[in-house]
């Protein structure tokens, strides 16, 4: 448990959606380190369930509760049903982290209607549904709750071939801002973490592509970020000292956004 005040999540009930995203898994681990019970959600009943179960075991070994769920985030109704089940089984819901992420990069002329819809489903609609349901659960709490959405710095910059993905993450930025205004009086805070180039993102930083490797040296720190560099910020944004922080998106990007 951290010594610094307000980073202690003992007794808090947390749900992390999208633990196949290494940032999501790191956040779940950080929540558990801080003392929270953590429900882990994978997006599909695939190989990631096995990895999630390992993480749940790790968390249980720390003395917290942890279970694995499959949440189809493409349908609001599914998100609601699974979230309610989690809240029931955990005994409440104080913290929700939404971390689904699926990258697509193609020239705009080649992006099909279906691809556009799917990019929005996974990178925006998912956050919308999770946030909507989380708020419903948190309104039952006397002390509200904290929502953390993991998105990308592409939400505020342009990059060739990312018209669909960047638009979905940009939409996520404004989802955070708008919802923050709507629920501020209910003691529900919502903030974002915008990832820069991260070391697991071979989908966008192809190790075989020289230009992509140059991109990882573009941030001030000249390297890609690691998952464990995301966890502590999520704990801060979910802690007890953060009631005056809402509607903000905090980059974890090694200074990428500062590049002229």
């Amino acid at each position, binding site marked *: 448990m951290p010594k610094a005040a307000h*980073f202690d999540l003992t007794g808090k009930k947390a749900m992390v959606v999208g633990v196949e995203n290494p940032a999501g898994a790191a956040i779940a681990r950080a929540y558990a380190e801080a003392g929270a019970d953590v429900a882990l959600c994978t997006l599909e009943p695939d190989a990631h369930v096995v990895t999630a179960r390992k993480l749940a075991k790790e968390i249980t070994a720390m003395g917290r509760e942890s279970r694995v769920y499959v949440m189809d985030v493409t349908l609001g109704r599914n998100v609601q049903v699974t979230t309610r089940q989690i809240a029931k089984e955990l005994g409440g819901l104080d913290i929700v982290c939404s971390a689904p992420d699926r990258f697509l990069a193609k020239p705009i002329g080649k992006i099909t209607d279906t691809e556009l819809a799917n990019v929005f489903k996974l990178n925006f609609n998912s956050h919308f549904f999770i946030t909507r349901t989380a708020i419903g659960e948190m309104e039952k709490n006397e002390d509200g709750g904290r929502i953390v959405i993991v998105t990308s710095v592409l939400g505020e910059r342009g990059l060739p071939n990312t018209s669909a993905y960047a638009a979905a993450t940009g939409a996520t930025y404004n989802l955070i801002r708008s919802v923050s*205004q709507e629920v*501020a009086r209910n*003691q529900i805070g919502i903030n974002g973490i915008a990832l820069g180039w991260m070391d697991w993102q071979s989908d966008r930083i192809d190790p075989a592509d020289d230009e992509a490797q140059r991109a990882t040296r573009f941030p001030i720190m000249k390297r890609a970020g690691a998952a464990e*560099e995301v966890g502590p910020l999520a704990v801060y944004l979910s802690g007890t000292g953060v009631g005056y922080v809402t509607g903000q998106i905090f980059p974890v990007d090694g200074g990428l956004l*500062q590049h002229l």
Partner: protein
Amino acid sequence: MLETLELDGKVIVMTGGGRGLGRAMAKALAEAGAKVVIAARTQEQMAQTVSEIRADGGDAIAVRTDVTDSAQVDALVAATVAHYGRLDAMFANAGGGGGVNAEFWEYPDDAFEEVLGINLKSAFYSGRAAAKQFIAQGGGGVIVNTSSGTAMRGNKNFAYPTAKGGVLSLTKSEATMLWGHGIRANVIVPGFVSQGPPRDEQDAAMRKQRGSFVPVGRLGEWWELGPLAVFLASDASRYITGNEFIIDGGGLAGGLGPVGFVPTHEW
């Protein structure tokens, strides 16, 4: 992962540490294990912060400093190193009002200079003195500046926001210039935050009224800067540099109408 939040043995300077947010941040840093050097102009206020930290079992000293004088800022860092042997983080937090009430087209040079000195030059002097020391001791180190939410929007009282806007820009450049030496720089941007407990009932009523204009329905409280200060000073933020940390009750995420304006329109 959260062991990175520990500040055990780190030496941190807090300018403007004699009161308000500086005092609150200094106390949180000390609580997380840091040795804190309180710098301010007013002896009694510094002594108060130091004695509050020591009463909680922390380690702190005071070094009287006028941050608008670069020689005094250099001396502050020298005094820190003389006492604690090194410097790990510089919080360039000193700042404040100053200036005069005047129409823009009549605003006098000396008033503008004064506001820049207190709020912007002070941050430059503090960052420069810290960077020099960080590099001399082999690199690494953290700079945390304090700006203001007023810097992000227009304001009739323009001098202070202009200086604080400079602090935002300074931070980004510090991050860019200094990473070669492993030095990170970030900036805290407080919105409407009260500096300490209310003085009396009238003060409390005024705060309540002002708080009603903030989306969360209240003013921020001084201690709420503490956890953020700890996060930014620590290795928990090691992949974060050049960024703004807005703590404003949701104000800057909104602002397209008065709080209470809730449009409804159905298809």
